[in-house]
């Protein structure tokens, strides 16, 4: 369970509150620059909120013991140094949270990078970098996944794969929070953010309301329909 409670940062976020629940895919939607990445970074302890709290299973990220076993996060870029091999990157990550080394081979297999394990991360295509980032997120088999724009840089086959993968994660009972400026993926719950404020929050049906489709609701809520 992810809970964001009245999180603010001057000029970026204004009293942002929402929850993401287990067993559901929560889409965190908004135009570019709406505050999605800032919220995710605060949730993950990379940035600080000036007021408000962001917790995962009732604890701030920085208080989680062996955090990779609780939360898997995918951010912009792979997180691997370009001169390090994919395998070496995942090995130090596994060591940092006392995870068994065998997990490295397993997650490489899951994301389809087994063949590229010995290649340096700097030689990876954008899509492969995202897969490596996802492999890192899955290392600790975490019950919570937080993904910032997971579809960026993926080719159509990769997008399909990611959509199915995220649905499967939710079906397994995991909490899946993903931010996106696209709307083309299956969601159970929706949070729409615009200019640092939550414009709508609820189940897909609740947010769609009378708008007919999520696209129409999104455009109406974010005022982007003017063109």
């Amino acid at each position, binding site marked *: 369970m992810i809970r964001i409670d009245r999180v603010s940062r001057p000029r970026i976020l204004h009293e942002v509150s929402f929850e993401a629940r287990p067993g559901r895919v929560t889409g965190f939607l908004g135009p570019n620059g709406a505050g999605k990445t800032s919220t995710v970074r605060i949730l993950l302890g990379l940035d600080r909120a000036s007021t408000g709290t962001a917790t995962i299973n009732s604890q701030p990220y920085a208080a989680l013991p062996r955090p990779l076993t609780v939360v898997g996060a995918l951010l912009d870029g792979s997180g691997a140094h370009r001169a390090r091999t994919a395998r*070496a990157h995942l090995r130090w990550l596994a060591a940092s949270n006392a995870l068994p080394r065998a997990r490295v081979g397993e997650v490489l297999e899951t994301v389809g990078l087994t063949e590229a394990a010995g290649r340096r991360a700097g030689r990876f295509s954008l899509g492969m970098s995202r897969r490596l980032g996802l492999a890192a997120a899955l290392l600790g088999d975490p019950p919570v996944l937080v993904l910032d724009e997971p579809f960026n840089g993926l080719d159509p086959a990769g997008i399909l794969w990611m959509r199915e993968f995220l649905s499967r994660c939710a079906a397994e009972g995991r909490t899946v929070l993903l931010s996106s400026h696209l709307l083309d993926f299956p969601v159970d719950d929706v949070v729409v953010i615009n200019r640092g404020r939550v414009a709508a929050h609820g189940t897909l049906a609740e947010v769609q309301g009378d708008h007919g489709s999520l696209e129409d609701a999104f455009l109406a809520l974010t005022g982007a329909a003017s063109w």
Partner: protein
Amino acid sequence: MTATARPGAPAELITSVHAELHKLGTLPSLRWAAGLTWAATVLLALAAHRAAPAADPVATALRWTQAGFLVFGVLTATQEYESGGQIRATLLAVPRRFALAAAKATALIVAAAVLTLPTGTAYPISVALVGAGLGWLLRNALAAVATGLTLYLIACPVALSRWPAAANWLPDTALLDPGRGAAAAVLWPLALAVGASLSFRWRHA
């Protein structure tokens, strides 16, 4: 420091140090820096021994090759901020920043100690730590190396020639006069480590 109050903190430190050592061991630029520094030190020491058998050849060699240890220290820190955004992976894995800083310092001391063992002096460990402190503060390898080289190769000799009494407080006195410079060789990296840890704690990633 919340990290020290947590139960299981020592175990956490050991796993973090293990991960940091793994990072240091799998980065090609660090292997190159270590290998070249080592080779240059051996060659210069051999040459110094032939030229002046009475002087300590290792100390003579280290006057020049300490720059290699400085670069090594800088790179251990700035690798986190190079392209790829490794610092975020690091902070997601070990989010408690003082604990992470302690693990990184410990790993660097271990790596630098292994590297300097053949020289019979601990002085290069001090130089590597100063490099790492500068790397953490400046987050840029070139800026940190330039600052460190200016400190060791220009500022220290100039300060020594103008105020000979300052020798006790210069970071490089320990190289030629360990008895006199030991305190400074410990205090300089310590002060930089404290400054770097505080800046790391409060700055955004």
